[in-house]
């Protein structure tokens, strides 16, 4: 036993308390330390109380001047928009604010399918240098530089996408692209294939 001082603590309450099975001072202090430290092991080790063996010298709570005691039970939950209200046998009180995560679309997950017009448009360059979405999609099909890529001279630029779509729809699968046909976009390793006929 160390030579620390003995003390008594009194805390006045503004609302009813739910002490649980046993509400002890060392548990309260370790909880407050955990909020500051974020480390459960340190929060227990640094409780500023003396120990007798493995037992901390902190008493159980004594409840003073009880007016009523009721069994707390959650009766029902009312949800309205982003608000949630618990209605118990004692009171109605607000729950924590929450929000519902919007449903994830295939594009937000990163699942970009090949040879889909929308995917190619999303992968097109944006901003002043990239021009419009439609022109960006065309640029992918035209090759690295307009008029100089592997597709140069074979199709007019505005017909490139239509030719690829027709091949997919009517002539079976496209031939395997070579390394000039692959463009890797973004950090997810998504390969967009601008098929060369």
């Amino acid at each position: 036993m160390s030579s620390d001082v003995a003390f008594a603590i009194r805390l006045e309450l503004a609302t009813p308390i739910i002490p649980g099975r046993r509400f002890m001072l060392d548990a309260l202090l370790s909880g407050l330390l955990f909020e500051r430290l974020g480390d459960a092991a340190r929060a227990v080790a640094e409780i500023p109380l003396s120990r007798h063996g493995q037992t901390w010298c902190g008493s159980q709570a004594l409840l003073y001047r009880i007016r009523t005691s009721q069994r707390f039970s959650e009766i029902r939950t009312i949800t309205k928009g982003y608000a949630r209200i618990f209605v118990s046998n004692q009171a109605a009180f607000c729950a924590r604010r929450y929000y519902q995560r919007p449903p994830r679309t295939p594009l937000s997950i990163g699942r970009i399918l090949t040879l889909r017009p929308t995917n190619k448009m999303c992968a097109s360059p944006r901003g002043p240098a990239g021009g419009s979405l439609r022109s960006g999609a065309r640029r992918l099909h035209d090759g690295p530089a307009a008029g100089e890529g592997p597709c140069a001279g074979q199709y007019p630029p505005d017909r490139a996408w239509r030719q690829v779509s027709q091949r997919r729809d009517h002539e079976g699968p496209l031939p395997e692209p070579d390394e000039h046909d692959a463009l890797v976009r973004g950090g997810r390793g998504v390969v967009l294939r601008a098929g060369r006929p």
Partner: protein
Amino acid sequence: MLSYEAAAVWFCGQGDLEAVRSLLGDVPAIGKKRSSGFGAIRPDSLDIEETSLALAGLVFADGTPARAVPVATWKAVGGGDAELASEAAVPPYWQGVRETCAVPSHLIVDREQAGRLTGLD
């Protein structure tokens, strides 16, 4: 879960008084369901006083256990007859290994009893 509409909560203990005061100084609420408004502490209501109670935090002034104390420790500190129960004696209590402990018999007290048990009177 039982909720109690109490005016105050009393504890007693032994340790670093200033560290305890700094930890409890800005605590907004205690107990379960704190985020739902239960156990709110009145501002500036913390009152800590030194006492002369031997084994404060383990044994109340009337000789009954002040907390769940393992039977071996309870015998070592010279404790008398007490109610026994299987309890977790070291935090975190929701995770701890249960053992046979001497458990307190006081929970709801009046002002005189609180002062007498914690060694203030």
